[in-house]
């Protein structure tokens, strides 16, 4: 069953068409990849799927409900989380606070103007658990800004996970990472796979071909190819290119 479906999304910025009737669907428990050349509209597409932009036409359906044009916070609360391509953390907060602020418990207590922010031990425990999960167990007290690049990437994912999503969107999680960091991140994503439905935008083909169950290729604001890694690799051009070799 498709957990998330997008039907013929169309979006323009002024006179510019950015998305041209994109349709996508992501199945429960799978890792779906989205790839495409630079400037093809991947991130814009992502932004529409997660509520940052409202499409001009088309529908987005999550878990059977039409969520087109809902606000990011509403979409987030339904159980869709995302990470960002450019670092997008609460820079002055510690790693712990970054995660804690994203927990639904914190959100529920948001109207409390008097109490202690982090007195709830269950909340503190859960935040730590998530940090341990992404391999940042010993970084809880560090300011996000001061963490090394790879760890900030992992923290991005931890923040996204903190809202206990049913569906997690990762926007170029390996961007800017060296091969070492990439491998570690791939391990982390592999660990998450199955536990949560994942959608990953990647420029790094190797990463997607090795992890994804299904891949959509986006170019010119539309889906120009779709299939399992094996299907896509069958294309002779892919076989003869770097892409083929890496895969």
């Amino acid at each position, binding site marked *: 069953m498709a957990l998330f479906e997008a039907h013929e999304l169309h979006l323009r910025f002024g*006179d510019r068409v950015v998305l041209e009737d994109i349709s996508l669907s992501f199945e429960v428990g799978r890792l779906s990849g989205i790839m495409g050349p630079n400037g093809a509209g991947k991130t814009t597409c992502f932004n529409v799927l997660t509520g940052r932009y409202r499409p001009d036409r088309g529908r987005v359906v999550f878990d059977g409900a039409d969520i087109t044009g809902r606000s990011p916070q509403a979409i987030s609360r339904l159980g869709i989380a995302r990470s960002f391509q450019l670092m997008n953390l609460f820079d002055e907060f510690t790693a712990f606070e970054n995660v804690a602020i994203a927990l639904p418990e914190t959100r529920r207590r948001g109207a409390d103007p008097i109490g202690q922010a982090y007195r709830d031990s269950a909340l503190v425990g859960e935040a730590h658990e998530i940090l341990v999960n992404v391999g940042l167990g010993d970084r809880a007290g560090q300011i996000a800004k001061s963490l090394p690049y790879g760890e900030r990437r992992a923290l991005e994912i931890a923040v996204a996970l903190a809202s206990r999503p049913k569906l997690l969107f990762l926007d170029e999680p390996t961007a800017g990472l060296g091969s070492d960091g990439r491998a570690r991140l791939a391990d982390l994503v592999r660990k998450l796979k199955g536990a949560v439905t994942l959608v990953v935008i990647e420029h790094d083909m190797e990463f997607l071909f090795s992890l994804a169950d299904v891949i959509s290729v986006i170019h010119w604001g539309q889906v120009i190819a779709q299939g399992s890694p094996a299907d896509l690799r069958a294309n002779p051009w892919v076989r003869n*290119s770097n892409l083929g070799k890496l895969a």
Partner: protein
Amino acid sequence: MSGLPLLALERVSKIYRRGLFDRTLAFRLDVDFRIDEPAIVGVMGPNGAGKTTLFEMIAGSNAPTGGRVVVAGHDMQRVRYRERDRLAIHYHQSYQVRRFSRTRPDFMMEPAGSSYPVVHLFDEPQFNAQDGYIGFMLDFFHRLRGEGRLVFICLHPTAALHLELLRQTCERYLFVANGQARPFADFGRIISDPDVRRYLGALAP
């Protein structure tokens, strides 16, 4: 769209002059052709000959000086600005540029009457053999054509690969040069034309 040609350029001309006062001719393009059936059309021609201008006129973002462009029965200059991409869409490099010369307000225009573009104009798509996207792109052109659309691919060949791509993918051709766009029915004919051979130079087979 039965009976109507997918695309007709009826004695279309585009003239640019040097300036407001200096009325010397700077650029001139005359085109007159029609395509009735879905097809993939390869477009070649030297830089500055007017390939992009031609695409812009088809997409409706650039108004012809004379004549008219008709896409699936609609005169592009009479269609609402925002709906023109429902008829013809111009993919410029990686993103899609449209900058209309607006002459009349939108509400005085006709609706497009189509929900998906009939003519797809790919302006110099990046064919990089290294990354493998080329295969997806070619498949995509064929898919569009299979869905009954008209596909234009504009290329300025710089490698043998590019000519080979055009030969394999396209069914008809246009050569834009010297102020004209000349149609050719197949690869053999365009490649044997002396003007084209001169343009291709060393690349010519």
